[in-house]
């Protein structure tokens, strides 16, 4: 099958992850990976991002598929249940807001900047080599550390399930995927009601 430009977006995702090792402020760019899927879902009512543009999915697909780093076994039933998918989305939200709260505390001067990347919401890895001071408020850096933690954590989780199950197992419980699917469901239900009324 002919390759399209968007089949190479894994390079963008990989570059993003690498940049975070050199200057943590690049983590801000990751907001694109959050907003683009949501905008596509809200405006067009599709999961176009998952279906075409998700570089993270492509990385898992390449490593697990072409590089053969996946056992290619079925994912456990509970991991694809609505309970787990929605539960993980809620958990992700809570952790995200906690990260925003920490950012706020640094902005407000109530807390000092912590130059750590927290992996799997538990392990605090020193990351001071990627912070060289900034023109911006330390709060901006705190958000970068927090956001990069989210991105790295999801990559690690995705890699683990890639190895254990099928290459793109992450797609099954990816919070962004769950969220965009929910938006599409709501949007299409609404569209249906409108069509029925006409």
């Amino acid at each position, binding site marked *: *099958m002919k390759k399209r430009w968007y089949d190479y977006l894994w390079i963008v995702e990989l570059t993003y992850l690498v940049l975070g090792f050199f200057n943590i402020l690049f983590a801000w760019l990751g907001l694109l990976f959050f907003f683009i899927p949501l905008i596509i*879902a809200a405006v067009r*009512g*599709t*999961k*176009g991002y*998952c*279906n*075409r543009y998700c570089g993270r*999915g492509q990385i898992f*697909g390449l490593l697990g598929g072409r590089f053969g780093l996946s056992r*290619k076994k*079925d*994912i456990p039933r509970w991991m*694809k249940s609505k309970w787990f*998918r929605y539960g993980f989305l809620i958990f992700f939200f809570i952790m995200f807001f906690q990260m925003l709260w920490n950012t706020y505390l640094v902005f407000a001067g109530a807390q000092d900047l912590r130059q750590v990347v927290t992996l799997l919401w538990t392990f605090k890895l020193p990351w001071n080599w990627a912070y060289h001071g900034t023109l911006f408020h330390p709060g901006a850096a705190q958000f970068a550390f927090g956001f990069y933690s989210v991105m790295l954590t999801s990559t690690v989780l995705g890699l683990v399930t890639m190895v254990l*199950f*099928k*290459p*793109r*197992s*992450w*797609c*099954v419980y990816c919070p962004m*995927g*769950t969220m*965009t*699917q929910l*938006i*599409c*469901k709501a*949007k*299409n239900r609404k569209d249906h009601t409108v069509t029925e009324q006409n």
Partner: protein
Amino acid sequence: MGTRIKRRAVVDDTACVACGCCAKVCPLSAIQIWRGVRAVVNADKCVGCGKCAKECPASVIEIQEVRP
């Protein structure tokens, strides 16, 4: 005369996450994501090769025999 058994991909609608991995590998473009909600198989095009079922990260696609 032997009759060839027809096969077709069947998606479990309730568990499909609409990731689109199936659509990417289908050689006949017989499976597509419907409005970001779930994968839908075009019964006229699908020959039941099983590529989508193998790829599906949630393993919610099954290849079933089609009874005439």
